[in-house]
């Protein structure tokens, strides 16, 4: 029991000791943070480390969160501030009298115009206007509200420009600003507070490295890694770019001069910059001169000074060379350019009348904005114009320079996407808005899209064809004695015209043939093969007939005594013995055989059907066979080789009871008597 008591006491003591140590560490972190915080905005980044440590140990203190927000606003991570102000306000709405102001400012930086306006107005409404501090704060928040209105308007009608960070090759995690470029954009010089500045020391007043000038060259649209310009331009103190003359031969630089800040000029001698030369005292005064630009003829210097007698803050002044080449009196550019707020970084265009500069006093959307002012014929500047969003932002936009082409601008801007506290950006001006053009085409005339009368309707109509029906005559040609297939010639004759219209061969291997005969004609078919008597067929299609197929087995007889054949294409006038012209083709085939076999003798016989008397038919058939004989004689065949006989209806080859049979019986035959 006693031991247990001691154990509990020991654990409690240990916990107490741990809590006490934590409490001590927390207090130390807060005290350290406070120490830096109270030194002003330049030390807030150091304070931030301690406040964040304290907040991680005890996140319940609204005031610490508020201070973290303030510190973030002065760091490269200023967009982190909003969440801390928001939390601080939620934990304690009275955490600081200006918490609404800073919340408004955070929204303002983030272009959240409505929310910014709400918080700014909340802050403004809490101010007690009797107090001097409050009057200043009233003026400040009133200006912020004006900036919000300007910002809202500018964002609604952006200019045609693209803004892009020059990239991590140029910009680093430190501060990079004040770019100057050669006319052809091949050389970029700028000021940087990076780690390798001359002397390598940190300015305790800003907790940043001393400024040096760096140079980068552009090859194939890529900027080379920046190099320190080195002595005599850079020194261990602050050395910063200001501007480059139009001809690129004179570089205006800023030298700190132990805090007084003055403008110097370096001249390009060969490929080296000369020692910086100071301007006379009316320009480089005991006050702070930080920026300048030559006029196109280098006879006037426009420069910035916070000397007394100005309109407030830093103002832009002008000083010209007199006839003897000496810098004359300095003159303030007056209220058209200068305001009670700061004006900075003038840049005179080669046209001699246009000046770009930065101002917090004109109609800005927050911090420094870039303005353009044009000089009238009497040498006075007209009212400056904000060059607009997206070049200008709610934060500082400064040190604008424009390429000779007018296409590109370079400047320093504080943006969310930046690499450091301030980065160098390239602006590409797009000129007037360009609208792509649609292309349309119409077929206006109907007659072009489609003929008013289609060609088909203009065409002459189809020709009348007597018949489209076709008779197919097919079969096989064989040797009558052996039954062997024969390759024979099939001659097709238009009997009406007495002309051969076609000639084919039967297949040599099979003896088969197929002949297409369009209807409308009387065809004579003669089949001939060597050493064989020809065979004839008559196919009369002169009367329109339906499609049909005729199959014939044609057996060709050898040329030997006793062989008979019907001449199917020998025709006579009705009831007469007169040969009709349709008979000529076939009779000529007979003439040919008789000529080919000059010793051959044949009988020519004619036959009738049984219509009429026997005597009559015998006479008719005799006369008909004689007609054939006469024709052959007329063709040179000797009469002694021919024998004409009329058989009447004594040797029918078919029945005389049918028309078809009678037709077959009406015939002329030949018979080989001797070869």
């Amino acid at each position, binding site marked *: 029991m006693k031991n247990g008591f001691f154990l509990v006491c020991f654990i409690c003591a240990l916990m107490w000791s741990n809590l006490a140590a934590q409490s001590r560490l927390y207090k130390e972190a807060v005290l350290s943070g406070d120490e830096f915080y109270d030194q002003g905005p330049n030390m807030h980044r150091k304070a931030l480390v301690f406040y964040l440590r304290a907040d991680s140990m005890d996140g319940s203190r609204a005031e610490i969160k508020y201070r973290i927000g303030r510190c973030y606003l002065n760091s490269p991570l200023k967009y982190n501030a909003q969440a801390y102000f928001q939390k601080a306000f939620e934990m304690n709405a009275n955490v600081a009298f200006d918490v609404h102001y800073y919340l408004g400012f955070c929204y303002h930086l983030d272009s959240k115009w409505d929310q910014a306006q709400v918080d700014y107005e909340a802050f403004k409404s809490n101010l007690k206007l009797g107090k001097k501090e409050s009057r200043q704060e009233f003026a400040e928040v009133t200006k912020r509200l004006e900036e919000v209105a300007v910002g809202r308007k500018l964002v609604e009608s952006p200019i045609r420009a693209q803004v892009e960070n020059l990239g991590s090759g140029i910009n680093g995690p430190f501060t990079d600003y004040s770019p100057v470029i050669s006319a052809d954009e091949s050389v970029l010089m700028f000021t940087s507070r990076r780690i390798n500045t001359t002397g390598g020391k940190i300015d305790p007043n800003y907790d940043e490295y001393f400024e040096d000038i760096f140079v980068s060259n552009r090859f194939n649209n890529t900027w080379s890694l920046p190099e320190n310009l080195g002595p005599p331009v850079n020194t261990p103190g602050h050395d910063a770019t200001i501007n480059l003359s139009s001809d690129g031969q004179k570089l205006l630089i800023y030298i700190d001069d132990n805090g007084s800040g003055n403008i110097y000029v370096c001249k390009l001698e060969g490929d080296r910059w000369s020692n910086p030369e100071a301007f006379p005292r009316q320009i480089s005064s005991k006050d702070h001169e930080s920026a300048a630009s030559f006029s196109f003829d280098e006879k006037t210097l426009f420069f910035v000074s916070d000397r007394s007698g100005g309109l407030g803050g830093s103002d832009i002044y002008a000083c010209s060379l007199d006839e003897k080449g000496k810098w004359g009196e300095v003159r303030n550019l007056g209220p058209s350019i200068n305001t009670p707020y700061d004006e900075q970084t003038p840049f005179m265009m080669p046209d001699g009348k246009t000046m770009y500069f930065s101002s917090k006093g004109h109609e800005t959307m927050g911090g420094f904005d870039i303005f353009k002012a044009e000089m009238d014929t009497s040498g006075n500047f007209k009212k400056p114009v904000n060059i607009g969003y997206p070049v200008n932002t709610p934060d500082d936009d400064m040190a604008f320079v424009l390429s000779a082409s007018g296409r590109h601008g370079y400047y320093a801007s504080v943006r969310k996407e930046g690499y450091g506290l301030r980065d160098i950006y390239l602006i590409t001006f797009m000129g007037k808005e*360009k609208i792509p053009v649609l*292309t*349309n085409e119409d077929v206006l005339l*109907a007659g072009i899209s489609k*003929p*008013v009368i289609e060609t088909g309707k203009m065409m002459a109509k189809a*020709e009348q064809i007597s018949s489209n029906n076709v008779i197919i005559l097919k079969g096989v040609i064989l040797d009558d004695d052996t039954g062997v297939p024969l390759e024979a010639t099939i001659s097709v004759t238009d009997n009406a015209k007495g002309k051969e219209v*076609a000639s084919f061969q039967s297949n040599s291997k099979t003896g088969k043939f197929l002949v297409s005969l*369009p209807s409308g004609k009387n065809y004579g078919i003669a089949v001939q093969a060597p050493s064989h008597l020809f065979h004839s067929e008559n196919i009369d299609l002169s009367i329109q007939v339906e499609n049909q197929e005729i199959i014939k087995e044609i057996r060709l007889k050898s040329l030997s005594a006793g062989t008979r054949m019907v001449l199917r294409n020998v025709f006579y006038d009705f009831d007469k013995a007169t040969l009709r012209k349709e008979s000529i083709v076939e009779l000529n085939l007979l003439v040919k055989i008789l000529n080919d076999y000059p010793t051959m003798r044949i009988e020519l016989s004619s036959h009738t059907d049984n219509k009429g008397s026997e005597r009559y038919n015998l006479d008719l058939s005799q006369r008909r066979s004689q007609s054939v004989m006469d024709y052959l004689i007329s063709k040179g065949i000797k009469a002694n080789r021919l024998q004409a006989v009329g058989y009447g209806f004594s040797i029918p080859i078919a029945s005389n009871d049918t028309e078809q049979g009678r037709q077959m019986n009406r015939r002329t035959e030949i018979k080989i008597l001797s070869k």
Partner: protein
Amino acid sequence: MKTAWMMLFSIWVTCLPKVLLAQHVGNSDSLVSVGVVMESQEAERTFNLALTRFQQKDYPGAKAAFSLALQSKPGFEKALLNRGLVCMELREYAIAQSDFEAVLRINPSSESAQLGLARVLSNQKKFTEAVEMFSKLKERTPSNHLPYYESGMCYFSLGDFEKASQEFTRAVELKPDFAFGWNDLGSTKRQQGDFQGAKRDYQKAIELDSQFSLAWSNLGSLMRITQDYSAALDAYTKALSMDPQNIQTLNNRGSVLLELGKLDLAADDFKAATQIDPQYAIAFSNLGVARFKNKDYHGCIDACSQAIRLDPNLANAFLNRGIAKEMISEFSSACQDWSIAAKKGSENAKFYLMECPTTEH
């Protein structure tokens, strides 16, 4: 079976161009020697075969068959006329003109040949000669609306809208239900700036032929010109419901959809036009515009480049590609495109070039 075989054979026979044809068909067991005898109406049969081929839109085949008919029967007037008409379809205007002239030598009163010859002249852009030929036809057949109508088309093509209007008006007076005439009269009025009159005439054409897609399309274009985009969209949609493959109407409806801010639907129409005709450069150029408005500048450049490949004379494709290139900071290349567009007549490009260095002009 036998009948079908006969029919097939008959068709085969009909299609044979020669007087006689013999060949062996079948396998070794059934080798048959085949012979075909054609009738003496060879030229007429070939002529009819040519007509069949024309109906099948086999224009080269039809032309060959008419030529064969003419070989068989020189001076075959109908074959000469029809070959001329087929050659018009084939855009072989020299042959067409020669054939029509041959018909007129055989038969000077052939109206078809006169009309064909006038059309050949018109198609060859010999509008003045064509107008003379149509005038002769007007004298021969004063109540025929067609010579007036075709004459109007010639005047329209010559840019003489006053005379075109007179001719089209006469054509519709002679034939009041002539929808083509009303459409073309509307188009003439459109060219004369008489948009109300044009609208009435297009509507009259549609009233006469509700399926007249071209009149709907032209009404849509008239509405587009007068910036009544909703009405234009309706008219184009109507036209496309009748003629869904019409690339010009698809392209024009895409333009209207773009004007109405319906970027995706517009792009769909332009793409559809290019799918129907992959050579249609204008739709590619307009697809580029749709992509530009969607801030797809690279896509715009791709589409315009395709348009330029298809039609290197399309000034707007160069202009639009230049504008897209400017948006992605390719200024030098943008200026080069504007320079080409300016040389091809784009006034906008000439204006934009003023922003470019003189070396890029």
